[in-house]
């Protein structure tokens, strides 16, 4: 059975016990994204802080409805992003995006992606890639909005 290659223990653990779930205040930007195919949805908030002139993800909170892949992905992603400078976080999300587009061909770098390497198996199933990317796309969108707002404040 190939099931274990998609549903790795790490994924099932995050699905059963998601990290950082639940919406928190305050926040700089909030977005709501849906997967139109299945109706899965995520509401995601981002709070940034300025550390020596560099924006850092201070907090990221979310509420979501969806399958094990989309839920676990949100949990893994929030682990990776919280506390990280925005530039570095954006680079990591690009690495994850590339992994998801690889149709199983990429050997993921655990040093960069940490628990997110477990999603390599998902990339072999085109119908599920959107599930894995839902929260990541919401994060990118929310962070971009938060950055815009910060820019407006400092201007």
């Amino acid at each position, binding site marked *: 059975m190939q099931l274990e290659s998609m549903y790795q223990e790490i994924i099932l653990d995050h699905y*059963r016990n998601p990290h950082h779930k639940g919406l928190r205040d305050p926040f700089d930007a909030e977005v709501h994204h849906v997967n139109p195919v299945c109706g899965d949805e995520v509401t995601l908030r981002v709070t940034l802080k300025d550390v020596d002139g560099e924006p850092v993800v201070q907090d990221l909170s979310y509420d979501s*409805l969806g*399958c*094990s892949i989309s839920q676990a992905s949100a949990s893994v992603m929030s682990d990776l992003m919280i506390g990280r400078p925005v530039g570095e976080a954006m680079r990591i999300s690009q690495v994850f995006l590339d992994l998801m587009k690889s149709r199983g061909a990429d050997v993921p770098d655990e040093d960069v992606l940490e628990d997110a390497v477990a999603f390599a198996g998902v990339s072999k199933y085109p119908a599920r890639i959107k*599930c894995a990317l839902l929260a990541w796309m919401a994060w990118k969108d929310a962070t971009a909005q938060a950055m815009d707002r910060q820019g407006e404040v400092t201007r």
Partner: protein
Amino acid sequence: MTAATAHLDVEAIRADFPALTRTVRNGNQLVYLDSGATSQKPFQVLDAERTFYERHNGAAHRGTHLLGEEATDAYEGAREKVAAFIGAQPGEVVFTKNATEAINLVAYAMSNATVTGARGSERFRVLPGDEILVTEMEHHANLVPWQQLCERTGATLRWLGVTPDGRLDLDHLDDMITGRTRIVAVTHQSNVTGTVPPVADITRAAHEKGALVLADAAQSVPHQPVDVAALGVDFLAFSAHKMLGPYGIGVLFGRADLLEAMPPFLTGGSMIEVVRMEGSTFLPPPQRFEPGVPAVAEAAGLAAAVDYLAGLGMCNVAAHEESLTEHALDTLREINGVRILGPDTTKDRGGAVSFEVQGVHPHDVGQVLDELGIAVRTGHHCAWPLHRALGVQASTRATFYVYNTHAEVEALAEGIRYAQRFFGARQ
């Protein structure tokens, strides 16, 4: 258990469907329970398309050569077969791309009648304050075009709700159809719950108030005998690919007097009478609604599909599916943590069985089933409002057709139990 039922020789039928012989993931034999999305195609349909291209390929309704003549015969012959299949006249059958386009054709013809004020088309005009009545049970294809028609015209969209067991709530039907209702658009068989609403009764009520009626028959024409005269509807839409036929061709039935008065939707070649730089006049129906070179090979494939189904007998098809549906309802009901959406008996209910598995998201159920070789649909099945009304975000759906067996129903139930064990869901 043998594959033969009292109604169909399923073993012989399965031999006609090459796709059913292939293996899928992990070397499993395919168990295809997604015919509600698209059916598999028998050799007879594939051969009809191939033969057309090999022997008769020419553009229908133009040219003076033999191939063009044969293509026209194939196309018009298909129209006659489809008409006979649903109890219509050939002139009442318009070929479209699919059911979705057929519904859009009517919705756009109505706004075209409103904008151009074409003579004789008053019947179709939609003005601000007019009403369009749909139901909460509709596939998006029979909902979004009407929302958009309301946006274009200033009409108001109203809808009939659903009961908790997935039937249409008809308690307020008489209030919901008013003197301002221009058209009632209703499904003839839900693609999610299998519910078969009383379309003939709804049509009578609508006609009393002077409203038109369109039935979305994408899930009924493939699965049960349908007679447009008995239903009394003004329009009926369905797709070939859900009834053993090819993609890319669908049907709009329209009552002859209505099609005669209706302005076109898409325009261009093939549908005109006289063209001058100042303006054009149009052919009578059905050609008025079929611009461009038609999909003749697809029409030939659809005709072969109609022959195939007529050969089985639609009463037998319906009885076979009813027996599978009953088996599925009985078996799935026994699984702890499984909730079936929609009616729990086969009364006025077709062969779509949607369900939720507590603690396991439909995507994950579908993924596990896929690993076992069982193909089902997961998500909202293009009926998001219906899912909302039934209190679920998404569901898993099994749909049955002429080639499905009772053993496949058992395989589905076993697969659901396996998914529950895999995800550690409560059983």
